[in-house]
């Protein structure tokens, strides 16, 4: 593409405002959809694994050490390497990349769900138990509503990481938003390179904003009416759990 100036910001603006970049199978909207497709599929699988596991460990307290160390090891796995390794070992398709991204998404979701369930005040749980609720009722009617804010925080952190990291899939299989970075580097088209980077950043911020909104409405009405006093031990424990659940992006 020809630009009117050698200034990189001008080139970026021209690339972003060129209508031909906004249509067709190689245009920005299609690439955004591909990107979100990776994110959606990855999060679906990751949640299917991590949510039940986190609920089980959070509710029973069994296997705590095991999942904490498992989360540590998974966090240390370089996703870039996993995406490329799976692409070579299996095939350069959608699924191997998705599985590599699942390894990235499981730790934040798992630690968020686990922290959410186990951060619920134990006296509340004991009260429910003494009222005769079954363990399943305690989990779904007491622990999940009370811990939902932190649980969704974990999912939010996972989505943020996957949105960011799905970019590298483009280097193994040419789709998703990373394609603009690959092409921009290969054909030395700086407008495409920086424009693509802007689209990725905007998408990440938009998705995270949406998740922040969902998280805000996930507080059960009963809890919203009487917010715990600021700085109470329960609140600071909750913040710590959220912080640990949200560690790291890519």
């Amino acid at each position: 593409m020809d630009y009117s100036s050698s200034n990189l910001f001008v080139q970026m603006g021209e690339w972003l405002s060129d209508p031909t970049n906004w249509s067709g199978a190689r245009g920005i909207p299609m690439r955004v959809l591909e990107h979100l497709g990776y994110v959606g599929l990855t999060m679906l699988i990751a949640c299917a694994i991590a949510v039940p596991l986190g609920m089980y460990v959070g509710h029973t307290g069994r296997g705590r050490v095991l999942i904490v160390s498992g989360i540590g090891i998974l966090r240390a796995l370089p996703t870039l390497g996993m995406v490329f390794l799976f692409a070579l070992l299996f095939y350069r398709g959608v699924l191997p990349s998705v599985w590599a991204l699942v390894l990235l998404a499981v730790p934040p979701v798992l630690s968020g769900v686990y922290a959410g369930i186990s951060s619920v005040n134990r006296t509340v749980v004991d009260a429910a138990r003494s009222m005769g609720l079954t363990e399943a009722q305690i989990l779904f009617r007491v622990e999940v509503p009370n811990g939902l804010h932190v649980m969704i925080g974990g999912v939010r952190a996972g989505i943020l990481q996957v949105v960011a990291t799905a970019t590298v899939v483009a280097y193994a299989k040419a789709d998703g938003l990373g394609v603009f970075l690959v092409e921009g580097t290969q054909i030395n088209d700086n407008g495409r390179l920086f424009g693509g980077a802007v689209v990725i950043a905007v998408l990440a911020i938009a998705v995270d904003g949406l998740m922040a909104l969902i998280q805000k409405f996930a507080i059960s009405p009963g809890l919203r009416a009487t917010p715990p006093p600021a700085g109470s031990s329960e609140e600071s424990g909750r913040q710590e759990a959220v912080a640990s659940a949200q560690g790291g992006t890519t």
Partner: protein
Amino acid sequence: MDWIQGVIDYVPANAALLRELTGNHLVQSILPIVFGVIIAVPLAQIARLNRSAGAVMLTASSLLYTIPSLAMFVFLPLVLGTSILSMVNVVVALTIYAVALLMRSTVDALNSIDDGVRQAAVAMGYTPLRRFLTVDLPLAVPVLIAGIRVISVTNISMVSVGALIGVPSLGRLFTDGLTRNYPEQIAVGIIATLLLALVLDLLLVLLERVLTPWTRATSSRTARAAALDARTVAA
């Protein structure tokens, strides 16, 4: 299992390259942690003293935290005027993430210190600066190190992304391995990255023990529990 043999054979044959890439990788992972602590601690103290400034800083840092690293690596040369191949871009990007993560937890940690301890220090004639450096900061160390451990693990994994735009690190083994269709090379890179993360994490645990001698008799896990207890008492 041929490929395991391939992985084992790769290491001695490429020792010099591996040493160089590991060195680059370490520099790009550790410098952001050091800079992150140096920047985040004063900012956290400012955020505590001035609530509106604190709110602005926390919002700005969490917004920056949202920007994907690859986009950040591409943009920073434009802002900083560095070469796109420079390690400076990766160090600056990861420092930004480290500050964003550490600032929040440091504010919480400083807020949770027992007010009686502070007042005792004031009564003993400590100046505000001396009190901050010798009382507040040491008591915040367990929380700080917990944050640093998360950062160090994610940094080590993220540094390899820089290889996509040509910054040298162990990520080079991934990009090279993909173009040369050489999975053993990628596996070596993954194992080396995992080992680096493990070693750095152990060093941080050790550092926490050295910096918090009052908990030396107990394990670091009980130290954190004690820190939480102290926080409960304060509240």
